[in-house]
């Protein structure tokens, strides 16, 4: 019964995804291209220690696509988010937004960069200044980017969008202060504010991890709906694989500053190829006690990005690791030639 359901479900998913993929290809517009992106930090008191937060990240994002980035804490996923929208500067590598280098954009016109690349933060309770009313926060954003001619039209735009995302009565929300709202409401306003600028892409850094489980779905639904409406690409950063799969078209799994595996969400979740991805997914529990998880055991905890092991960075924890893994750097490889990239030499052998 269950297997049937899963299969039909998987088929539905696949069909849906193929359709989506075709749509994307039709428009075939790359909005974000990231090439060998690196971000290294030096510790304050130990200047010779290099923290390699991002260590060569490559990917591209098409218009309207949602890329999920999953990984444990310290894998560099949040750093990636901040670098992508230019809040931090990369140490090396290139970020092209709509085929323009992010650094050029920044120099030329910072506002334009902000209009193209937006961000939703993790902590909705701290995203707004508690002294300023929601309405003023939103209208001032419009004013900053010269959207709407008069303050009256701006107010109308804000009221309409509040109504559109179901924050009703909208006049009421317009007048409220941030500390009077719940986390879910605040996060929806945060998404709304980013979307008011109609950006090319939006980075959502753990947007629901601080919210109660019962309100997460509405926030994710809203993000997905608004992104689809405006054909905005989304980089969805999360440690929660189930949630990410729920929204993402493609998923990239990060470990110690590198992408270990990347493919369509369906592929990565249902047939993961990298041992790390397998471990991560098999360790995700289900709220149904009838499906006990069978976690793939891996040794220890992720090493700190200060001393990444030689060779494959997962080699010291990997149950399948060989001497070659420990000495040779691995590269992302498309084994099945279907766009499912894996950074593991033995990916095919384990399946």
């Amino acid at each position, binding site marked *: 019964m269950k297997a049937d359901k899963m299969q039909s*479900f998987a088929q539905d998913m696949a069909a849906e995804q193929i359709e989506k993929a075709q749509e994307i290809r039709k428009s075939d517009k790359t909005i974000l291209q990231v090439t060998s992106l690196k971000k290294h930090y030096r510790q304050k008191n130990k200047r010779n220690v290099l923290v390699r937060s991002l260590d060569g990240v490559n990917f591209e994002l098409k218009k309207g696509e949602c890329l999920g980035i999953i990984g444990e804490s310290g894998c560099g996923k949040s750093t990636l988010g901040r670098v992508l929208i230019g809040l931090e500067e990369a140490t090396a590598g290139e970020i092209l937004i709509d085929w323009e280098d992010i650094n050029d954009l920044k120099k030329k016109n910072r506002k334009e960069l902000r209009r193209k690349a937006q961000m939703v933060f993790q902590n909705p309770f701290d995203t707004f200044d508690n002294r300023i009313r929601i309405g003023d926060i939103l209208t001032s954003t419009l004013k900053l980017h010269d959207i709407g001619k008069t303050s009256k039209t701006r107010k109308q735009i804000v009221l309409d969008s509040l109504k559109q995302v179901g924050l009703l009565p909208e006049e009421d929300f317009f007048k409220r202060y941030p500390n009077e709202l719940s986390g*879910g409401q605040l996060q929806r306003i945060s998404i709304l504010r980013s979307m008011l600028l109609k950006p090319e892409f939006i980075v959502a850094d753990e947007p629901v991890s601080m919210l109660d489980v019962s309100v997460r*779905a509405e926030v994710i*639904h809203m993000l997905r709906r608004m992104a689809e409406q405006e054909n905005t690409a989304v980089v969805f950063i999360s440690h929660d694989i189930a949630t990410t799969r729920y929204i993402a078209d493609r998923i990239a799994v990060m470990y110690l500053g590198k992408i270990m595996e990347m493919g369509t969400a369906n592929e990565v979740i249902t047939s993961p190829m990298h041992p790390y991805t397998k471990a991560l997914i098999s360790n995700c529990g*289900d709220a149904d006690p009838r499906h006990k998880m069978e976690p793939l055991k891996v040794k220890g905890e992720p090493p700190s990005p200060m001393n990444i092991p030689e060779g494959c960075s997962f080699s010291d924890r990997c149950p399948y690791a060989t001497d070659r893994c420990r000495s040779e750097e691995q590269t992302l490889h498309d084994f099945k030639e279907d766009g499912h990239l894996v950074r593991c030499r033995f990916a095919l052998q384990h399946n």
Partner: protein
Amino acid sequence: MSILEIKDLSVSYLGDDYKVRAVDHVSLNIEEGESLGIVGESGSGKSTLMLGILRLLNERTSKTEGEALFRGNDLISMNKKELAKVRWSEISVVFQKAMNVFSPVHTIETFLSDIYKVHRPNAKRQEIRKELTDLLAMVNLPKQVLRMYPHELSGGMLQRTSIAMSLMFRPKILVLDEATTALDVITQNQILSEILEIEEKLHLTRVLITHDMSVVANFCKKIAVFYAGRLMEVGYVEDVLVHPRHPYTRDLVKSYPTFSEDGTGTVISIPGTMIDLKKAYTGCPYANRCDRATEQCRTDRPMEDQMDEHWSYYCHNPLQGGETDESR
């Protein structure tokens, strides 16, 4: 046999001009040797319950009423000296931030043996070291950890150490208050599996407080669902999570995204927000968000209804044993 019997327990936080019923007349039995998961969202009172029972709350800003019988002795009315004996050595708690207790300038050994000596002043050095090594071995830590400083240990190792510390006097009840929440899933599962083994060995009763239902589904026998300071439903996980009687349990399960089933499309959120506990209300606190709410739900407080001796719920209009898929 029940080891901890909570009877009609209420905990209120007192403000200048308000009073928050953080735990509202909760009765709950914890059987010896069982593992109970307490789940709830923020503001459900899940943490306050145990803090209130162990009287770890500030007495000037909070008030605890009711009874909590640990082997027949009421912890709420017990004098401080007796309570101190029970706390830590009979019932020990590990908090989410437990790893922060270690003093940064002392080695783990110094820190742990100081605590050991407080309770066993006559212990010899050799004896302490052996004891501590055994403790660490229980949570799969090598004895080298003893000579290390807290900053040399990873988050997972520190949390393991604090769990080892809480087992120092072989407590009967181990309370884990979001103890593994901050850790990565892989580490979290490792630690919880280790705890399962320790439990067998030491005949521990475990209370696991968390917002993560998958952890309860995988690592606990029983579950108690809290909402707005009240107990909504309690029973074996196979019952409560699969055939919930209380609409809130169902909604909570359904808002939990998983990918074994329903990975896309059907994750719901519960409309509305939790009632403001600063204000008095009648009836069921979930009535304003519940699709099955009737007039009665808004006026009368639901009383306990039992399915069997282990499974009870507090709802006027319970679900009739359908699966969690029963439509909302």
